[in-house]
């Protein structure tokens, strides 16, 4: 599956968003996800199928003003 993850091209063996996070080694990290610009809650990741060319954003807490 050819995906864009946080702006970088990846070829991942993942058919849904939960699998993609697993393959990318996020483990139990505290993150939030969006698919093609729309928020995907953690509980919905396993039921969110991926397609070639999908854009995934994975974010975590960071310094801010």
């Amino acid at each position, binding site marked *: 599956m050819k995906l864009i993850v946080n702006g970088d091209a990846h070829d991942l063996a993942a058919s849904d968003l939960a699998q993609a996070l697993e393959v990318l080694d996020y483990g139990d990290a*505290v993150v939030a996800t969006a698919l093609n610009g729309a928020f995907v809650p953690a509980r919905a990741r396993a039921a969110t199928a991926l397609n070639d060319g999908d854009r995934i954003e994975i*974010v*975590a807490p960071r*310094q*801010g*003003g």
Partner: protein
Amino acid sequence: MLNFYGVELGSRLLLGTAQYPSPAVLADAARASGTDILTVSLRRESGRLREGQDFWGLIADLDVKVLPNTAGCHSVKEAVTTAEMAREVFGTSWIKLEVIGDADTLQPDVFGLVEAARILCADGFEVFPYTTEDLVVAERLLEAGCRVLMPWGAPIGTGLGLNNIYGLRSLRAHFPETPLVVDAGIGKPSHAAAAMELGYDAVLLNTAVAKAGDPVAMASAFARAIEAGRAAYLADPIEPRDMAAPSTPVFGRASLA
């Protein structure tokens, strides 16, 4: 006591967490400031590096409330999606809503801000909008469901202080019951004290502490300035006047000419 969305807070200083020389200095400055609220953001996380996890651990140890922001968002859609992600990650419905309209001044796109505020308030968020001192925009934000307003003092990171005292005073007078926070542009403790003397409820700042030569000492200085400004406001300052008025009694002066 300061109250945001039903939450009572002891400190009137909201502190940003960016640009400190080190995580340890950030933690020390946060403690020295006495703040009850730290602002945070969301940024891309690498599964391999996991930089955000250490930061989140540091913030959690400080045991204060967090106010996530939508910094860097230039559209309603970006801001709303960021807010949704922040609510899940930080476990709070509080959101510091920023919809930026101009890259040079980082001033709010007030039209997008009102639209995003309406969407988020309807979805149960408790919105802290980063806005200008414009009265009509403030009215629209309140109509959208905002219960706190955060007008800028000056553009973010400039340290220019309160650029439009008249506008800020006018906003305070028009919305006496709404918690008002000066957010952005503060450079020195005197700026923060001036905001509090205008009757503002709190001050939000980041760069002025983080980029100071001694951030921990500056955090403490801001805490005291904000307390002094608040106390001065409550003590009802005198009205300024153009002509001098002797403070020492004239009656009883010795005739020595």
